């Protein structure tokens, strides 16, 4: 079939429908892009390959983008990869700049999406060949690099690192999973916990418990003070959004989009690492690192351009190796197999029309995402003015729905929500640092697998230094990252005393 026969009105309507549903899924705490793609997958069977892809890619782009809305407005990351968006987006909302923060996030998402798409289109096969140079060793170093962020993100470095390591520790509870290459043995479990915790705690319930439930518990402790929205949120000041916010941010936009794309290309590193890495790089390179975490627009830009940069990146290994770059693209494989299309190293060459359709669908989905979200902002910001006795119970219910459905119906995930809601509340009391804890929890399992597998294969710690030139470059980055963190913490102490 010719390309222009495929690009029917239906094709574009499906992109719009997919993007809208995706944004809604992404915007509801607990619902994710992955889930949106999974629930719509059966529909695509009757749609045919091209139209099915239009719907699914719309869902993918929309779902990743929608996550910024709750992250900015109510401090709950809609998807794990918008975690770092909360760091500066929510403080902006507290200052009454929620609308601005959303617009900054949306523009950054569009830029990230388009840059990664361009990279996908022009360099996919080359990049796939580069990606396979990353063995267990290099992947561990990337994760380690992302973990060094913990130091830069904490206000008290020692406590911050402790919180991060605690996050890793808790992420290791349960089975050393066979499907990741582990030996299937339990660890860190008492016998009575086995029936519940044999698969450990799931990320999403932990995330929304710590961010969503614990925030509501803290509000409840204060007796739900009258007034609207979460405590301290100012209503929009009506300061108009200007693109001048982006002046001087082009380096940030490009770097973050590229980091996002690159992390997406590496199978098994995980989407959250993308925004964590680019956020911390922006902080390191910034002239005003102390602004970060207090509502710096460049923090939102870094985080959002990186997580949309993922979308194009994750399709690189999918379409040129047949290997998904993240959990959502893992389901996209199902869409191809349903239609009898194999994805692998020959896919692009054998299916040039489908390849063009994918690129066009992604492009259209990014543009549609931008237009719809820009239009919807005016209505979205009203969320913060909904009275608490309406908003909070609904948020709690949606957290429950998200936790229950993330693994297709497991009640323990709902209890995880409560456990980590209470944990988040207590952590707040004893001043544990939540951001490093979550980062440790997210990256812990991959850090383990890649570390242990590297040693299993090579039997010596020196392999981490000698494996390849890539390892050398990564060590350089790691050392720089640590040095920056130390310098930053010195400087902050100096400010404190002055």
């Amino acid at each position, binding site marked *: 079939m010719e390309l222009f026969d495929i690009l029917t009105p239906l094709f574009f309507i499906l992109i719009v429908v997919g993007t809208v549903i995706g944004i809604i899924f992404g915007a509801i705490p607990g619902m994710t892009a992955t889930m949106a793609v*999974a629930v719509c*997958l*059966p*529909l695509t069977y*009757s749609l045919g390959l091209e139209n099915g892809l239009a719907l699914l890619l719309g869902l993918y782009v929309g779902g990743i983008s929608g996550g910024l809305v709750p992250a900015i407005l109510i401090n709950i990351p809609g998807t794990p990869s918008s975690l770092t968006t909360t760091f500066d987006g929510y403080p902006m909302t507290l200052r009454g700049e929620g609308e601005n923060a959303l617009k900054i996030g949306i523009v950054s998402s569009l830029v990230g999406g388009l840059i990664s798409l361009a990279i996908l289109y022009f360099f996919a096969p080359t990049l796939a*060949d580069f990606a*396979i140079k990353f*063995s*267990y060793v290099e992947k561990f170093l990337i994760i380690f690099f992302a973990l060094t962020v913990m130091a830069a993100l904490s206000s008290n470095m020692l406590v911050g690192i402790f919180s991060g390591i605690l996050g890793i520790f808790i992420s290791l509870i349960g*089975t050393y*999973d*066979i*499907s*990741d*290459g*582990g*030996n*299937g*043995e*339990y660890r860190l479990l008492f016998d009575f916990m086995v*029936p519940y915790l*044999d*698969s450990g705690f799931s990320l999403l319930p932990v995330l929304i418990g710590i961010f969503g439930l614990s925030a509501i518990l803290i509000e409840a402790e204060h007796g739900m003070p009258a007034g609207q929205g979460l405590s301290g949120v100012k209503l929009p000041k009506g300061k108009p959004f200007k693109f001048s916010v982006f002046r001087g941010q082009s380096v940030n936009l490009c770097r973050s989009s590229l980091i996002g794309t690159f992390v997406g290309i590496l*199978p*098994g590193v995980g989407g959250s690492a993308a925004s964590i890495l680019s956020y911390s790089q922006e902080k390191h390179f910034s002239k005003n690192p102390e602004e970060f975490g207090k509502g710096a627009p460049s923090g939102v830009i870094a985080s959002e351009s990186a997580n949309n940069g993922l979308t194009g990146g994750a399709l690189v*290994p999918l379409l040129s*190796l*047949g*290997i*998904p770059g993240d959990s959502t693209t*893992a*389901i*996209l*494989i*199902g869409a191809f*197999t*349903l239609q*009898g299309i*194999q*994805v*692998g*190293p*020959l*896919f692009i060459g054998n299916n040039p029309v489908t390849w063009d359709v994918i690129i066009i669908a992604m492009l259209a989905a990014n543009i549609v995402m931008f237009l719809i979200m820009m239009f919807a902002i005016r209505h979205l910001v009203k969320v913060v003015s909904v009275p608490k006795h309406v908003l909070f119970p609904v948020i709690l219910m949606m957290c429950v729905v998200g936790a229950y459905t993330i*693994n*297709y*119906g*497991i009640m323990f995930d709902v209890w995880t929500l409560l456990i980590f809601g209470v944990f988040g509340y207590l952590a707040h009391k004893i001043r544990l640092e939540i951001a490093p804890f979550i980062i440790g929890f997210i990256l812990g399992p991959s850090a383990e*697998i890649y570390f242990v*597998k590297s040693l*299993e*294969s090579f039997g010596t710690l020196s392999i981490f230094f000698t494996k390849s030139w890539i390892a050398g470059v990564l060590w350089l980055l790691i050392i720089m990252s640590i040095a920056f963190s130390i310098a930053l913490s010195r400087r902050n102490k100096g400010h404190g005393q002055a």
Partner: protein
Amino acid sequence: MTGFFKTLAAAASFAALVATPTLSSAQELPGNVRLVIGSTSTGGDTYQNSAIVAEALAEHLDINIKVDAVGVSEAFKALNRDSRGSTIMIFHDQSYLGHLYGVRGYDDIFETYKVGPTVAINPGNAYLVAKNGPFQSMEDIIAAASAGQRIRVAIQPGGVSEIGFSALKNAVRIAHPGAEENIVAVNTGSQADKNQVLFDGQAEVINGSVQANEQFTRLPQDDQKAMRFVWLTAAKETIAQANPEGLGDTPRDEMLAYVTPNVSVTMDGAEDFVFDKEFFFLYNKDMDPAIVEQIDTALAEIFAAGKIQETQKASFFIPDFKPSAEAATYLKAKRDDYRQIIDAISAQ
């Protein structure tokens, strides 16, 4: 999609539902069934195959069936909790192989559950080598191992991915007792990990599948990613039932070159080892036999109609319907065969 019309009907009958809790008559499947699977992936073969069967079954019996990819341990737990037939399961040979290999969380399915009908085979389980590597065939590999060369095989431990490895080890033991120590497992996870260790030169042989690796075998020899099939574990009769065009650019006849008797991995010196990855139902031990009967009958009618076979073959599944009683006997025998192999290589 008829799903939306079903939705409307469901909404209409909602009031009635609330008024009368479904204390179902216990002789047939309830109106809303949850089909759990032993995989957490909704892009994988278990999900795909279960979705095909669930859709056919739901249509035939005019009920709702939801497929939930909850994973092995949660699926078994859900099945244990519910004897009403509201929760049923589909899984494959992993369910008893996990137990044979002593993996945590796997019980003896023949003791703990009721084994239901088999529905399909995924004939794609394969072993591959690097195209520019020293080995051309399984014969080369067995010969090299017998001659004392260490052969590293990348697998996911504890089940379907390991059974072919165990068989290879056993075949080397028979050819050259003692040399089986040269067959070493590299324990990895996903297909991406297995491919990666081959690219890195950390393994000589990897476990894979026709579906996931076929395109890699089509790459030119000088490509670092190029692979070569050396063995498909499926039975000859299984592959012979596939559509003649095969999968991708590999027609059925070419696949037949990689199965027994063209590739021989002996089980006991006389017979070749084969492994068909079969999908079958599992039920709660106390589920009403009438429901077992009902599903058997329904599936028999569905397979007699012949439409499901086309859907399965289009997705490279081989139709394989055996009613419950026959399936249980057959799978038990299959399990006992594999137990012998595993015992033989772990004896020393």
